[in-house]
């Protein structure tokens, strides 16, 4: 019976061939709204997740300032700054990918997603190099740990420097894990974009992934000063 109150799933507002509307939603705009609220809620949980580590960082920096200053001197400022630039650029390319997804320009979507992927992979590669470097210099907490200054002397308050490095690896490691997941999702988005899945009627996955990518970028923008910049000159 086609009474006016019957709303068949997928009818009202469903695009002709893009973006299937799930059966439990009334229309595409409700689906998009729900997905957007969902992604923002998820990002809130991520803030709390990283927040725990930031709390531990602040607690220990306050307790052992000399150790933290000395240990943070051992991070490579040039590499860190370069990596920060790479990541910020990747946010730019991601924003452009979203922009072109909204316009439906298939090749440009693929291009900018690929550039984002490239920049993200570069960041991860540089991070891997940094981790390797720390391993070689005995800065990984554990049995072989031995923190030394440039001149070869032990770091100030060396007994507490493993805390800095534990937090360094914990925080950047968690961040890198999020980036690896992001890189995986970009591959998936590229595959879909090449088939023309995204256009003005439906580009929600690209837009919401963009939110996620920008969030990961913002976390790094907090991590970089805390781990690389603060107290650099104050260290003996």
């Amino acid at each position, binding site marked *: 019976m086609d009474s006016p109150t019957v709303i068949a799933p997928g009818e009202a507002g469903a695009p002709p061939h893009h973006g299937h509307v799930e059966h439990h939603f009334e229309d595409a705009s409700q689906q998009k709204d729900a997905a957007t609220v969902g992604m923002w809620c998820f990002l809130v949980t991520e803030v709390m997740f990283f927040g725990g580590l930031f709390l531990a960082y602040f607690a220990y920096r306050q307790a052992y300032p000399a150790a933290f200053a000395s240990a943070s001197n051992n991070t490579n400022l040039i590499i860190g700054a370069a990596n920060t630039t790479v990541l910020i650029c990747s946010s730019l390319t991601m924003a452009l990918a979203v922009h072109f997804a909204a316009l439906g320009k298939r090749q440009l979507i693929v291009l900018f997603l690929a550039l984002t992927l490239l920049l993200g992979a570069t960041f991860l590669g540089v991070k891997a190099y940094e981790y390797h470097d720390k391993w070689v210099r005995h800065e990984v907490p554990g049995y072989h740990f031995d923190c030394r200054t440039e001149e070869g002397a032990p770091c100030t308050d060396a*007994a507490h420097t493993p805390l800095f490095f534990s937090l360094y690896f914990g925080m950047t490691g968690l961040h890198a894990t999020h980036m690896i997941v992001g890189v995986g999702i970009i591959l998936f988005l590229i595959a879909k974009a090449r088939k023309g899945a995204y256009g003005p009627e439906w580009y929600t996955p690209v837009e919401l992934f963009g939110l996620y990518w920008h969030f990961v970028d913002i976390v790094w923008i907090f991590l970089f000063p805390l781990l690389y910049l603060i107290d650099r000159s104050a260290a003996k």
Partner: protein
Amino acid sequence: MGEKSFQIFPEAASTIAGHVDALYAYLVLVSAFFSLLIAFCVVYFAVKYRRRGDEIPRPMDEHSIGGMILEIVWSVIPLGLSLVMFAWGASIFFTESRPPADSMEIYVTGKQWMWKIQHNEGAREINELHVPVNRDIRLTLTSEDVIHDFYVPAFRTKTDVLPGRYTTEWFRPTKVGAYHIFCAEYCGTKHSGMIGTVYVMNEADYNAWLAAGSGEGSMAEQGQALFNQLGCGTCHPSEINKLNGRCPNLFGLFGTTVELNDGSKVKADESYIRESVLYPQSKIVAGYDNIMPTFKGLVTEDGLLKVVEYIKSLGPRNGMPSSATSAPAQTSGPQPPAAPTANSRAGNPATPGNR
């Protein structure tokens, strides 16, 4: 220990116990009143307003003013009663956080699964604590392994005992007798076996007990022996006015405020001494270099307490160990201003005759 088989309350054997019991009585009365009130109302309404037949109540108007007044009343009254609970409890807690300045000091080390207790005069006990009645007793506690908790129900007081830190607990026993010590923070296999007894004795009995104590000398004397044995004396002067530019002078250090090389200030309490021995690089005194080696692994927690007692004994602040004036060591929170006492170094000459 009052081994009645049917008991509801533990004995009240300290000055604070009576206050805690009074607060408890208030809490029980308020709780009983509201529990019974609610229970009565629920039962009464369930009976009086039970459904008869098919009728349901006429939809009532949203309880406008009357409803709002009720909501405010039953928010404000509980809030008021609660704030009394808060204030009363906070006042008791503050008393518990401030040991009197002339408390007698006893040191406790907890480890899986026993309590080791050291008296200044040198007496040592395991799982037993002998104290004189009607004296303020202040315990300084630390753990050698995991977190424990030193709980004396009869005194209504407890504190967690942490590894790597000193915590304090004080009480003034009021009744001679024997009371339980319980470990009240789960610490592994024999957590429930980590129990002991506090023996509160009258002054004469206590002194007699003390005199029969260990023949190793007082804690301060044992601490001095360690101090020399570990080589501390080769750098740190411990006599008045001796300075050598390499290591800070320890004479009269305890209880003063020390300025560090980054401009911050810290109080030279038990925790500071301990940290300086184990992690000397964490805090460098202004005007000195970072050259002190660490003694971690070379001295036990018991040994550290002896060294602390020795350093406390250096200088005019030294007196009879059991009546020594010692500043309350606050291991956490903001430091209260050091209360000037009769023996403060602000003006009094050393009184060596007080030993």
